[in-house]
C-alpha cells in the first residue's frame, strides 16, 4: 500500500500511509483506538475505497472497489462483528454466496471444510448450527469462510478481543500453521504481549499516521508502548484538589457475564469518592461499558457482586444490587449516567431537546399529565449555560443537531439532575477541542461540588490531566488503581495491555 489517504468529511482517518506485507509473514498492526487501523484494513478488503494512493499485490497495481474484488485478489478479512446467519450450519454459512460451484453439495463442502480444518488445526463441526456456537467457534467459521474462498492474505481485526486465553493460544497455533503454508496474515491488535508472541513484524499507527515498523525480535513492550502512545502532550486541563474526600460508591467483587456466559467483568472492586474524578482507562471492550451499566442497573450481575452507595446527607449505606433503573431512582439515589451510545441509549433522536431533557424527569409532578413548563425551562437553561447551538428547544428533532451539541444536551441533562454520582462513557468522543474543554470543566465543577465523577476515556493524555485517580481495566479485570498526578503515560499503557503492568 502506498500513500493511502482516507477522509471522512473533514476528518482524516489515514494520512499517506505506506505499508508492506511479505509473503508468509505475520504482521501486527498496532495502535490506540481511533488510530485508523481498521479503516486502513477496510480499504484492503474493499469496504472503503481510498481517496488517494495505490495498492499493489505482487508488485502489480490493483483496484479494490468491493469485497468481491478483494476476494478475487486473494484477500479476506475477518471482522470483529461476525457476518453469519444464525440458523445455518457452519457449512451453509461457508458456502453462502458462492456461485460458480455448480449445484449445492453440502456433503462435499463439509468434506472440504474438514480438510481445511485438519490442515491448519481448526476444531470445528461443519454441521453445527451457528446459534449453538461459542464466539471462538463463530470466529473459526469466519476464518474458514475466507480460506475456503482461497485467500492468501488474511486480515484479522482484533480477533483476540472476544477470546479466552486458551482460545487465543489455539488461534495463534492456527495462525502459525497458516503462515507455514505460505499465507500472509495481518493481525490488528493493541495487546502488546500478543504482538510479541505471534508476529514477525510490527507496524504502528498513531492518529491516522504511519509511525514505523520494527521486527518483533528487536522490540519489547516498552519500546512498542512508546511508539504507540507517543510522548505525553500537555493539555492544560485545570485540576483543582477537592477539600475533602468521602466514600460515595463502593464496588466489591463485581462480576458480569454476557448472554453467552463469557465474563465481561471479573472480580472488580474499587471505591468512587465524592470530590474526585475517577478515571477508567483500558483498551476498548475491556469491560468499561459493562461496569457503568452494571452500576446503573442495566446489566444483570453475578451473586457475589456488591454495589454499595453511601447517602451523602444521612451517611447511610444502601446496596444497589439487583435494582433496575426505576428502583434506583425511587430509592433516592441520584445517579447520572452519560452512556457511550448516545442515540442508542441516552437520547431519542427524533424528539426535541425539551422532550429529551424530560427523559429523566418526566415522572415529576402529580397526576397523569406531563409537566411541560419545567423541562422547557430546563432545556433553555442547558442551551444557555452550555452554549448549545440550536434554532429552538421544542421544534427541531435532536438528531438534526451536530454531535457536539447533542452531547452537550446529554451531559447537561445529567448534570441538571444534581447527581451525587456522575458516570460518563467516552464523553468527548467525536467532539471538537472547544466542546471537549467545556465538558472537562463541567466535570471538574461537579467534582468540586462534591460529586463522585467516574470518567471512562480513551485518550490517555486527557485521563492523566483530568483524573485524580485512574482505574485501569484489562480484559475485565482491574489491572491497577493509580494516582492520576504521579503516573506516567507509559506505565498506564503497560497496565492496559497486561494485568499489573510491568514488562
Amino acid at each position: 500500500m502506498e500513500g493511502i489517504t482516507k477522509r471522512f468529511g473533514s476528518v482524516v482517518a489515514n494520512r499517506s500511509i505506506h505499508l508492506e506485507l511479505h509473503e508468509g509473514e505475520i504482521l501486527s498492526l498496532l495502535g490506540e483506538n481511533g488510530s485508523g487501523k481498521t479503516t486502513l484494513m477496510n480499504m484492503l478488503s474493499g469496504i472503503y475505497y481510498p481517496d488517494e494512493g495505490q495498492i499493489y499485490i505482487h508488485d502489480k497495481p490493483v483496484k479494490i472497489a468491493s469485497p468481491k474484488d478483494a476476494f478475487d485478489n486473494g484477500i479476506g478479512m475477518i471482522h470483529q462483528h461476525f457476518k453469519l446467519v444464525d440458523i445455518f450450519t457452519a457449512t451453509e454459512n461457508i458456502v453462502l454466496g458462492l456461485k460458480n460451484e455448480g449445484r449445492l453439495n453440502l456433503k462435499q463442502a463439509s468434506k472440504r471444510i474438514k480438510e481445511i480444518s485438519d490442515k491448519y488445526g481448526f476444531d470445528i463441526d461443519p454441521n453445527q448450527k451457528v446459534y449453538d456456537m461459542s464466539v471462538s467457534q463463530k470466529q473459526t467459521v469466519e476464518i474458514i469462510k475466507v480460506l475456503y474462498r482461497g485467500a492468501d492474505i488474511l486480515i484479522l481485526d482484533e480477533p483476540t478481543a472476544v477470546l479466552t486465553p486458551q482460545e487465543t493460544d489455539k488461534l495463534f497455533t492456527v495462525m502459525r500453521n497458516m503462515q507455514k503454508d505460505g499465507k500472509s496474515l495481518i493481525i490488528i491488535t493493541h495487546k502488546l504481549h500478543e504482538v510479541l508472541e505471534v508476529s514477525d513484524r510490527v507496524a504502528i499507527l498513531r492518529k491516522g499516521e504511519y509511525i514505523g515498523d520494527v521486527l518483533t525480535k528487536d522490540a519489547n513492550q516498552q519500546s512498542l508502548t512508546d511508539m504507540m502512545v507517543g510522548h505525553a502532550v500537555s493539555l492544560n486541563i485545570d485540576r483543582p484538589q477537592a477539600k475533602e474526600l468521602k466514600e460515595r460508591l463502593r464496588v466489591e467483587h463485581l462480576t458480569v457475564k454476557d448472554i453467552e456466559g463469557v465474563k465481561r467483568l471479573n472480580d472488580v472492586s474499587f471505591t468512587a469518592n465524592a470530590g474526585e474524578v475517577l478515571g477508567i482507562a483500558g483498551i476498548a471492550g475491556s469491560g468499561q461499558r459493562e461496569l457503568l451499566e452494571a452500576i446503573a442497573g442495566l446489566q444483570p450481575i453475578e451473586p457475589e457482586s456488591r454495589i454499595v452507595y453511601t447517602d451523602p446527607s444521612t451517611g447511610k449505606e444502601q446496596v444497589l444490587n439487583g435494582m433496575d433503573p426505576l428502583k434506583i431512582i425511587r430509592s433516592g439515589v441520584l445517579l447520572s449516567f452519560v452512556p457511550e451510545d448516545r442515540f442508542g441509549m441516552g437520547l431519542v433522536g427524533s424528539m426535541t431537546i425539551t422532550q429529551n431533557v424530560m427523559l429523566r424527569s418526566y415522572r415529576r409532578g402529580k397526576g397523569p399529565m406531563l409537566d411541560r413548563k419545567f423541562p422547557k425551562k430546563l432545556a433553555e437553561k442547558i442551551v444557555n449555560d452550555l452554549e448549545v447551538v440550536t434554532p429552538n428547544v421544542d421544534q427541531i428533532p435532536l438528531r438534526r443537531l451536530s454531535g457536539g451539541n447533542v452531547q452537550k444536551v446529554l451531559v447537561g441533562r445529567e448534570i441538571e439532575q444534581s447527581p451525587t454520582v456522575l458516570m460518563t462513557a467516552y464523553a468527548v468522543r467525536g467532539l471538537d477541542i472547544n466542546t471537549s474543554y467545556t465538558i472537562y470543566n463541567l466535570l471538574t465543577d461537579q467534582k468540586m461540588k462534591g460529586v463522585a465523577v467516574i470518567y471512562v476515556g480513551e485518550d490517555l493524555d486527557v485521563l492523566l490531566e483530568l483524573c485524580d485517580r485512574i482505574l485501569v481495566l484489562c480484559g475485565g479485570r482491574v489491572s491497577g488503581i493509580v494516582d492520576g498526578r504521579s503516573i506516567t503515560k507509559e506505565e498506564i499503557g503497560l497496565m492496559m495491555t497486561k494485568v499489573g503492568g510491568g514488562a
Partner: protein
Amino acid sequence: MWSFLVSFLPRAVMQGMPLLYGSTGEILTEKAGNLNLGIPGIMYVGAISGVIGAFFYEQATQGGQMIGILAVLIPLLSCLLGSFLMGLLYCFLTVTLRANQNVTGLAMTTFGIGFGNFFGGSLIKLAHSEVPSLTFSNTCEYFGTGNYPGWLAYVGIVIALLTSLFLRYTRTGLHLRAVGENPATADAAGINVTRYKYAATTIGSMIAGLGGLYYVMECAHGTWANEGFGDRGWLAIALVIFTIWRPSVSILASILFGGLLILSEHLSLQLGIKDLYKLAPYVVTLLVLIIVSLRKKREDQPPQSLGLAYFREER
C-alpha cells in the same frame, strides 16, 4: 363410515388445495423476509384474471368447439400475469420504496378483493346473467370433473414439494433463506438482496394466484360469484404459521384445514356449531404460534428479518 370417507376426502382435498397454493406462495415470499399480507387480494386477482381469460375465450368460441390446450392455457396465463403484476407492485412499494410491509399488504388486499369483485360483477353484467354468478362449464371441463381433485390439484402438490426441496437443497434456496434471515450478511456474501426479494415475492404471488384459479375452476365447478372465495387467503397465511414455514407439511395441513371448512356440511350439525368448527384452524394456529415462541427452537421461528425493509447504509 367408508362411504362417508369416500365422499368427504376428495372434497377435503379440493377445499385444501387453494390454501396449499396460497401458503406455498406466502412461504416463499416470507423466506425472503417479506410478510405479504396482500395474499388474500392477490388470490382474488389471480382468480378473476383467470376468469376473464376464460370468459373471453368462451365468448370467442361461442357455440363452436374449444381447443383444449387453449382453454387451459388462456386462463392459466392470464391468472399468472395478474398475480405477477400484483407481486411486482408489492415489491416495488416494499423493496424499492421501502414502504411498511403491513400497510402495503393490507392495501393490496383491499385493492385485490375490490378488483376481483368489480370485474366479476362487470362480467356478470356483460353476460346478461340471471343469477349473480358466472359459470364456465366448458372451460372447467378441461380442469376436472368437479367431484375429484383434477390435475391442477396435483400440480399444487408438486409445486409445494418442489418449493420444499428448493428451499432446502439448492444453492439459490440457501441464498434466499439467508436474505430472509439476515440481509446484511447475504449482501456481504455477494448476494443481490433486491433481486432475490423481487423474484421470490413475484413467484410466490403467482403460485398464490393459481390457488384462486383452482378455487374457481374446481371447488366452485367453474363458477365465479363475488365474495365466493371468502376468507381463504387469510387461512392460507394461518397455514404458513401452522406448518412452521414448511410447504411439504402444508400439503397435509391444507387438506386438514380444507376438511374443517366443509366438515360441518357433512355432519348434520346444529347451525351454530358449524361455525365453531370453522374456528378451529385459527385457534390451532394461535396455539402453534404460542408454542413455537415458548420453545424458542431457532429453526421454528419466523425468518428473522420478516417484515423489515433492508437498506444497506443503515446499520
